[in-house]
């Protein structure tokens, strides 16, 4: 019950943040849009982890993780998460991510990241029949993000999915 409340509170937090994000929407796609996608991916990973967590402190530990300072290469981090997400999808018998060339522009990064978000949502839907999904497509977009911020978010997602694998015995 406590977990359910935690999950709802996580989702509601995200919902309340999405109201604030409306004003930040601009015509141009920027790193902020990509960072927002990865923030949503991290939220889903936290929700998935909360679903299997036996210890609230572990969830808090995952939430308080800091990105690895040595992570600077977008493609390396993307490739690692791509592989891990496929592993996760395969564990539930879901289709793997389509093969993609390393993205170069912000638009390509946005599309690739969005595709990973979609597949992670598929996993969420598969594992939780009551889970809402629209909430993970909104949220508060950061301001003046850089490529480093994107890499940091991907690195956090890699750390959290690793912890999920460990906790889930995958």
């Amino acid at each position: 019950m406590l977990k359910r409340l935690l999950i709802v509170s996580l989702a509601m937090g995200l919902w309340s943040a999405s109201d604030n994000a409306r004003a930040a929407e601009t015509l141009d796609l920027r790193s902020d849009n990509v960072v927002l996608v990865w923030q949503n991916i991290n939220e889903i990973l936290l929700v998935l982890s909360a679903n299997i967590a036996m210890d609230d402190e572990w969830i808090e530990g995952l939430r308080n993780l800091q990105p690895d300072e040595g992570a600077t290469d977008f493609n390396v981090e993307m490739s690692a998460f791509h592989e891990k997400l496929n592993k996760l999808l395969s564990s539930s018998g879901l289709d793997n991510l389509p093969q993609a060339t390393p993205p170069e522009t912000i638009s390509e990064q946005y599309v690739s990241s969005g595709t990973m978000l979609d597949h992670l949502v598929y996993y969420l839907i598969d594992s939780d029949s009551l889970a809402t999904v629209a909430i993970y497509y909104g949220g508060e977009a950061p301001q003046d993000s850089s490529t480093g911020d994107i890499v940091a978010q991907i690195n956090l997602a890699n750390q959290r999915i690793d912890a999920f694998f460990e906790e889930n015995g995958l």
Partner: protein
Amino acid sequence: MTNLKISTIGTIISVFLALSAAAIVSSSFMTLNQVQQAGGAWHDFEEGPSRKSAYLNGVYKALGFGGMLHQYKDYLLNKERVQIVSFFGKIREIRVALDAYKAIGVNDIEEQALTDILGVITAYANAIQKAEQMVKQGATSDEIAREILINDAPAIAGIDVLFAEIDKSRTNSAVRVNTAVEEASFLSKTSSIVIGLILMALLATMIWFTRWRLGAPLRLLGETMTQLARGDTQVEVPAQDKKDEIGEMARRVQVFKDSMLANEEMAAQQRQEAERKEQRRIALEKVAAGFEGDISNVLDELTEMSKLLDNTSSVMTNIAQDASTKASSITTSAQDASSNVQTVASAAEELSSSIQEIARQVSQSTSTASNAVTEVEHANDKVQGLASAARSIGDVVALITDIADQTNLLALNATIEAARAGDAGKGFAVVASEVKNLANQTTKATEDITQQINGIQNATNDAVLAIENIGGTISNISEITSAIAAAVEEQGAATQEIARNVELASERTSTVNSDILDVTYSVDETGKAATQVRNAVHALGDHSNELKSVVEGFLNNVKSA
């Protein structure tokens, strides 16, 4: 213009042609520039309105007016969460398309329209999130509809505006392309006309130049040269008064004509000379033909003779070689015969000397035999005397024997008497014994002497017989020796005859040797002479051929002269 030189006119035409070429090149560059401008306008159209149109179509399709975006409530109510994910995927596609559209470059109207579309899209995204919460709280479709109102009009209007702007942009691009193409076309037409006119003018000038300015005088000059070439030296050379190259050429043709006239005169003289030479050549040909026949016969005979001589010399050479071989053989045989004769002569001489020695020895033997007969007779006499003396000794010995016998008897008587005398007679008995011994010894010696005398007598008789035999033998030897001497004498005479004949044969063999050496020398000389004759014959053949070649050359020269 008519007084200008051809080279000057050619230079003028070349300058105009160069100017025309420059005009063509310039026109081509200008046309190319216009075409590039048209291309640039088309490229801008491709990169601008065309791509914008594609992105806008993508937005229109993703929005799916009357379609997917308006179904979100049903998705939520039917728990079709996969469709919700697809919904947000469409939202993402629209975001990317709007971003790409703006990146191409937009004006204020377009930016406003894009913002309006983005606003509607964002409203949908927010609406679905809110509706999801309402569905979760049990809200119905009507409740959701009442709570969430989305005005699509700004997006629809924005899309219309964007299509209108794209049309404007497309029209502008088309106008730019058309303008550039029209300008290029105009430039191309204008330059083509101008260049065509220039080329036509140049062509007309070329026709005038080639046909009238250059062609007509050249044609007249050509006809004149043709007549001159046919030998018509009476024709007048035209255009000599012109100042240009044709006038100069005409004046040179006149020089050519003058030369032809001089050549005609010279040709007449040459014809006469040629006729004279022809007559001389015919005469020479006749002489040469006769000479050729004669010399050909002579050369043929000479060739036949040289062949005959060659054969004869070959035969001579062979005979000489054969004779030389036989002479060498005879020389060897004669030398052998001479050597044998000399050997026989030496043997005959030695034989003669030997016979003489034998004769001398035989004569000496005969003399010795005669002496031996004499000596034998003398020895026979001596032996007869010895036999006679032996017989005398026998008589003495018989006497001595008688004396000894008587002495012995006396001694015997003395002994008897001494015995009778007793002791007194002992000394006498000893003397009587000694006398007796002496008488016995005398008797014995006498017997020995008798025996010796008998032996001497026997030997003497034997000697007499032997001497007689020796005498007979020596007589026989003497007779034989005489016969031998006679025979040896005859042999000596025969040997001397042989020696004389052998010497004569030796002398003749030497003569034969000498003669054969002379013959060998002569044969060698004959061989050399035959070789020289053969070489001479070959040389004669070569000279004959050379003479034939020279004669033929001479005759050919005579004929061709």
